[in-house]
C-alpha cells in the first residue's frame, strides 16, 4: 500500500504539472507578446560587431550572463579538482592500451582540432562559437586520455589552474577596461568590438575545454589521501 502510494503520488504530481504547464502554454500561445525583442535586436545588429544574432546576444547584448556562466563553469572545475587528492589527475589504471583505438586517434585528433577551430571561427556569422568549439576540444582530450596518450598538464598544479581561469580572466579584464575607459562595465569601446569579441571567444574556447576535461578526469577513485573526518 505504502509502495503504491509512493509511486502514485509523484505520478499524480507530475501529471498535474504537465497539465498545468500545457494549459498555460496554450494560454500564452494564444496571445501576442507585447514586446518584440527580435525586431529590437535586428535594429541593433550593426552595432554589435558580429553578424550572427546569437553570438551578438551572447557576447554583446547579454555578455554579463555569459561572463557569469563562464564563472559557473570555472566553479565546477575548481570544485572538481579540489576533490582530487593525488599529485596527478590521471589514473594509470584506467588507461587502455587498445592498439586499434590508438591508431584511430592518430586520425581523429587532428580532425577534431580542425573542427574546433572551424566552429570557433564560424561563430561570427552562423551557429557555432566558443562553447561548441571548447566542447569538441575537450572531447579530443577525453579521447586522448582514454586512448592512453599521456596528458602531463592535467596535474592540479599552476598550469592547470591558469588554464582554468585564463578565459574568464581575459573576459573580465576586457569588461573592466571598458568600464575604466569611461563606458559601462562590459561596454566595448566603439570600433574595438569585433577584435575584442574574437579574442574573448578564442581564450574562452581554450578554458572551456580545460574545465570540461578537468571535470572529466578529476575525482580519481583511489584511497590516497582520503580526507579524514577530523581535519582542521
Amino acid at each position, binding site marked *: 500500500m505504502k509502495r503504491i502510494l509512493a509511486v502514485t503520488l509523484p505520478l499524480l504530481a507530475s501529471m498535474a504539472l504537465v497539465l498545468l504547464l500545457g494549459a498555460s502554454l496554450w494560454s500564452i500561445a494564444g496571445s501576442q507578446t507585447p514586446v518584440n*525583442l527580435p525586431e529590437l535586436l535586428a535594429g541593433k545588429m550593426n552595432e554589435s560587431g558580429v553578424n550572427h544574432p546569437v553570438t551578438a546576444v551572447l557576447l554583446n547584448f*547579454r555578455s554579463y*550572463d555569459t561572463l*557569469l556562466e563562464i564563472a559557473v563553469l*570555472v566553479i565546477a572545475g575548481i570544485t572538481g579538482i579540489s576533490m582530487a587528492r593525488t599529485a596527478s589527475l590521471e589514473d594509470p589504471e584506467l588507461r587502455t592500451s587498445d592498439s586499434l583505438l590508438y591508431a584511430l586517434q592518430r586520425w581523429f585528433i587532428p580532425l577534431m582540432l580542425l573542427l574546433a577551430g572551424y566552429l570557433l571561427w564560424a561563430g561570427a556569422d552562423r551557429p557555432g562559437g566558443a562553447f561548441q568549439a571548447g566542447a569538441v576540444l575537450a572531447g579530443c582530450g577525453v579521447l586522448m586520455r582514454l586512448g592512453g596518450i599521456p596528458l602531463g598538464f592535467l596535474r592540479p598544479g599552476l598550469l592547470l589552474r591558469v588554464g*582554468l581561469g585564463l578565459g574568464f580572466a581575459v573576459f573580465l579584464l576586457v569588461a573592466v577596461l571598458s568600464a575604466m575607459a569611461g563606458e559601462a*562595465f562590459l561596454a566595448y569601446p566603439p570600433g574595438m568590438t569585433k577584435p575584442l569579441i574574437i579574442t574573448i571567444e578564442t581564450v574562452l574556447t581554450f578554458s572551456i575545454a580545460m574545465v570540461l576535461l578537468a571535470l572529466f578526469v578529476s575525482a580519481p577513485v583511489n584511497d590516497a589521501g582520503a580526507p*579524514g*573526518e577530523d581535519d582542521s
Partner: protein
Amino acid sequence: MITAWLMAGLLFTPLAWAVLCLLLDFSRGRLVSCLGITVQVLVSLGLWVAVAREGGFLYGLGGWEAPLGIELRVDGLAVTFILLTAIVAGACGLHASVYLAPDNAWYRYFWPLFWFLWAGLNGVWLGGDLFNLYVGLELLSLSAVGLVALGGGINALRASLRYLLAALLGSMAYLLGVALMYGQFGTLSIAGIASLLPETQALVGPGMAMALMLSGLALKTALFPLHGWLPPAHGIAKSPVSALLSALVVKASFYIAARLWLEFGHELGSTAVAQLIGGLGGAAVIWGSWLACRQSQLKQVVAYSSVAQIGYLFLLFPLTFAVSDTASLQAQQGMTLQVVSHALAKAAMFLAAGNLILATGSHQVAGLAGVSHFLPFSLFSFGLAGVSLMGMPPSGGFAAKWMLLQASLASGQWWWIVVLVAGSLLSAAYVFRIYQASFVAKTGVDDFYHPPGSLEVIPLLLALMSLGLALVAEPLLSVMALSLETGGAP
C-alpha cells in the same frame, strides 16, 4: 561619474579576486583576499553613501538598456544588502583566514569559491533581469556546494549532494517560470513585465510562471516543508562557510521571491496563495524551532534555527497582499530588518560556535559544560547573537518582530501574532538550552583552549552590530526605502 567607477569596482573585484586566488595557495590567497575584502567593503560603503545621498539608478551593462541588454537595479534596498554582504562576507573571510588550517592542500580552493560566492550575491541583490538572476543563483549555489564539499568526508559529500540536487531542482523550476514569462511578454526585465502586467488579459500563463518561480525559490530558501537539505549542509560545513550560507546565501533566493511578489504579486497573487505561503512560513518558525530544541549538536541547533528564522521572512507575503499601504510598508520594513539582523546574528552565531567547538573539542551541546567559567568571548558573542534571534530588545530581531507585529495588527491578520510570539518563545528555549549547558558547574575542566583573539573578536563585532541594530533602524530604513525614480520602460 563616481558611481560608475564604484559599480565597476563592485562587479570587478570579487570576480577578479576569484581568478587571482585560484593561482595562489591558501596562505598567499589569504593575504590577497584581505586586501580584496578591504577594497570590496570600501566600494560597497561608497556606493551605499552615494545612493543614500542621490537616490538609486539603473545601470545598463555593456551600455545596453533593457529589454535588449541587462540592467542592474541599484536602489536603496539593494545597496543596503550589498553593504550587509560586504560586512558579513568580509567577516567570514577574515575568520576563515585564521580558522582554516593552511596545511590542508584543498583549502587553496576556498578563496576562489568564496569570491565567486560573493560575486553571485552581489549579482542577485542588483539583478533586474529574470534570466540574469537565474545565472546569479546558479553561481551562488554551485560555489556554495563547492564550499560545503571542500575537503569533505562522506557526510560532507552527502550533505553537499543533497544541497546540490535541491538547488538544481529549485533553479530549474525558476527557469521554467522564466521561460513562460518570456513567452508571454517577450521581455525578461522585471520592471518591464511589472509595467505590462496590468494590461494583460490572460493571467493563466504568468500565474503559472509565478507559481513555478516561487516554488523553486522556496526550495532554494529552504521554506518548510522543503527545508530538509539545509540543516545537514549548514551543520557540516566549516564554520565560516556555514556562516556565509546561513547568513547570506539563503537570503538571496528569498530576496528574489520577495522582489517578484512585490512587483507582480498585486496582479498574480491571491489571498489564498499569500496565506498559504505565510502559513508555511509560520509552520517553519514553529517546526524549525522545535527541532532546534531537540538537536544534540551545537551547529545543528544553529542550523535548524535558520530554518525557523527564514520562516519569519515569508510572513511578508500575506502581510503585503491586499492590505493598507501602511501595513504593507511595515511588513517590508520588518522583512528587511529581519534579513539584516538575522544575517549578522547568524553569522556571529556560527563563527562563535566554530570557536567554541575549537575550544572544547566537542560538537555536542553538552560539551559546553563549565565553559562559561573561562569567560570565553565566543560564548558571549553566541549569547548576544542569541538575544537577537529570540527577538529580545534592543536587537535587530526585536525591531523586526515589532514591525511585523505592527503590520499584523494594522492588517487585521492577528493569527501571525501567535506565530511571532510562539516563535520567539521557542527560539528562547533553544538559545537558553545552550546558555544553560554552559552554566553547568563542572570541576576539573582545566584544559580550555583559547582560540586566537582575532577569531574571538569577529563574531563579537557581528553580534554587537546585530544587537544594536534597532538603535539605528530608523536611518537604515530610510535608505532602504529609497527606490528608483524611473519606472523602467518595458
